[in-house]
């Protein structure tokens, strides 16, 4: 698996889009053949779709799976005795959990690639870390939520994580004061989910009129904009709020799916989400056909990391647009894009399930 191994070993922003494309397509082909040969269900899907994985294809031509299929079925390309752990993330508001089967190699690959992608944005030093969430979020039955997975996954970039909220989701001033006394004005790492940061940190501090000394902090957030969009808060408004309550200016949103942990898309200082060498996206229309750059459509995510389960080509239910290729002012090469949010639900017609309405 020459191309696949080469790309996995590269720095995340080492290649231009043109240099990456043929290697990436070949690597996706290798991974597709690997899953065909090790997952009978996946082989059958390729067969029914009439897809010949032995011939070369562009990345937009490979069959993809709706991410929700992992909520309905457990699909794996390893034997049961090779299973290291099964991620059963329930998502932020979902009911049925995804079941993602990891072997030791895939789990290690996920944290290795995540480290290199995030390191490109925040540097290699492990900074004191402030988590904008409650300690209870990562404990007990919550431990498998997407929020817990995010907090635990990003904790490897910080030292001595301090939780800014108590389990009632109120600011924990004992913890905050201690953290600020020790690290105020120093470089620190802040991590949290977008709506938690907004609702339980920015808005509360704004109401109290408090300003924290965090102007050397770098803040990473993710988890989606649905709840903020309902309050008409956009990326610019979110960032302005953080400047106001803490002088926080280095802010990076990230986009990714729990079904493709590790290969995330980080937002740069220019506000664009970046495809690393190890991942890519394809934008698709209402018939799931690929769209040219600049068009708005469904986001399909491609990751080279999933080897123990056939989740390397996944269709999300988010809409996005490719902004540019190799032209970001931040200097990182590759494809950049933006996310608009979840695609609209359809009105269902038909005669079943009637009187409930």
């Amino acid at each position: 698996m020459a191309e696949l191994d080469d790309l996995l070993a590269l720095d995340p922003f080492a290649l231009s889009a043109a240099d990456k494309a043929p290697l990436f397509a070949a690597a996706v082909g290798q991974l597709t053949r690997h899953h065909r040969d090790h997952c009978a269900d996946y082989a059958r899907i390729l067969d029914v779709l009439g897809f010949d994985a032995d011939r070369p294809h562009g990345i937009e031509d490979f069959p993809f799976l709706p991410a929700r299929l992992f909520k309905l079925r457990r699909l794996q390309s390893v034997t049961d005795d090779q299973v290291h752990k099964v991620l059963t993330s329930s998502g932020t508001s979902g009911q049925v959990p995804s079941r993602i089967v990891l072997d030791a190699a895939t789990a290690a690959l996920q944290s290795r690639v995540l480290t290199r992608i995030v390191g490109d944005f925040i540097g290699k030093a492990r900074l004191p870390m402030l988590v904008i969430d409650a300690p209870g979020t990562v404990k007990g039955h919550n431990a498998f939520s997407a929020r817990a997975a995010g907090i635990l996954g990003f904790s490897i970039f910080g030292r001595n994580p301090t939780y800014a909220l108590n389990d009632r989701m109120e600011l924990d001033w004992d913890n905050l004061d201690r953290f600020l006394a020790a690290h105020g004005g120093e470089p620190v790492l802040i991590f949290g989910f977008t709506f938690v940061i907004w609702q339980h940190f920015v808005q509360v501090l704004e109401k109290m009129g408090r300003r924290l000394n965090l102007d050397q902090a770098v803040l990473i957030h993710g988890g989606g904009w649905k709840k903020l969009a309902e309050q008409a808060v956009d990326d610019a408004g979110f960032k302005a709020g953080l400047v106001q309550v803490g002088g926080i200016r280095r802010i990076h949103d990230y986009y990714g799916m729990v079904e493709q942990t590790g290969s995330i898309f980080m937002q740069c200082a220019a506000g664009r989400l970046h495809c690393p060498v190890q991942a890519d996206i394809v934008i698709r229309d209402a018939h799931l056909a690929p769209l040219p750059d600049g068009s708005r459509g469904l986001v399909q995510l491609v990751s080279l990391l999933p080897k123990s389960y056939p989740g390397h080509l996944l269709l999300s239910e988010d809409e996005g647009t490719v902004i540019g290729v190799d032209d970001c002012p931040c200097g990182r090469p590759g494809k950049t894009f933006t996310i608009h949010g979840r695609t609209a639900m359809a009105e269902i017609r038909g005669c079943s399930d009637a009187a409930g309405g």
Partner: protein
Amino acid sequence: MPLADNESLIRLAGTDPTDIRPRVPFAPEVLDFLADLSTELRQNPEARRMGDVQSFAFWCRRPHLERMRQAYDDKKRRLGRGLAFHVAPANVPVNFAFSLAFGLLAGCANIVRVPSVPHAVVDLVAAVIAKVLVRHPHVAASNTLVRYDAASRHSAVFSARADARLLWGGDATVLALRALPTPPRCVDVAFADRTSLCVMGAQAVLDLDQAGLDALAHGFFNDTYLMDQNACSSPHLVVWLGAGGAEAAQRFWHALGRKAGTDYPQTPVRAVDKYADLLEAVLDKEPISRARTYGGAVTVLEWSALPDGVAGCRGRFGLFRQILADSLEPLAPHLDGRFQTLTAFGVDRDQLADFVVSHRLAGVDRVVAVGQALDMGLTWDGYDLIGQLTRVVAGPGQP
């Protein structure tokens, strides 16, 4: 309009039936009311833009009512059963009006519960019914349209008064309603979850000229895509009968692909649902040899054999199964009670209906031409609705 609390009841038309004396079926004042309603709906500028409303208006115009009256005349003395309570479906909005019309034509007084979530079609037709009822006071005194929350006690109260009930909905909804106590002689007509299929004569499709092929695709489109394939009478499986089935299928699906490609408003959510359904069918081990798409809106799963549970294999948003067959014999054991409509092209429909009877099938209540799957009639879901909603007064010479 929001409900103040879950017990409130909004009366959209008519009055709570004070006069529940039965009428004869197809009573003149009922035909006058429905014909008047038909004219009003066909003239209303808003209603003219709603295809399903116009289908209903066309159905209850006077000449068609007269034809139904003559076709039904079985020389028996009949009277409506009394008070009929209807629970209309949420997702086929115009069916509340059909349900009311069935009750009226049978000679019943009617309480029709429309879905609690407001819907443009329901609201408009209900408003027109209210307006027309004013001109027909005798009908108004025995009929009403109401809206209330499904969780309220009103369904129980109306059920306790009902001589007949027409219950539309999914299996769970129908079972919950049937658990409500009714008077001992109350008759229930339950329209629960059903499914449907289509049989095409391969040679007949191959013999079609382009115009005929396009007309067939148009009819099939109306049977399926107009309700996102969710209607009980929309086919999910197409059986290609006789030699040349593979070629006939290709020809037909390409034509449907052109029709649906221009006329079906596909959305990303529907496309993802449809694709996920396809993959689930594969993972469920349906005997699929290939999945093919014809344009963006048509996807066909080619079966190499009939699986167990054919009735449970349903598509949405333009996902169909097909199988090639030399005869219908192998299909017979699969046609269980969940099958409602068999649409057909190029195969004699009388022979198909005879097939259902001679094979003593539990399923298939209705055999119609492709294009007529959604056409409502007084025989629906296997029920003779006039027969169900009337009682017979036996006397000399009329046993």
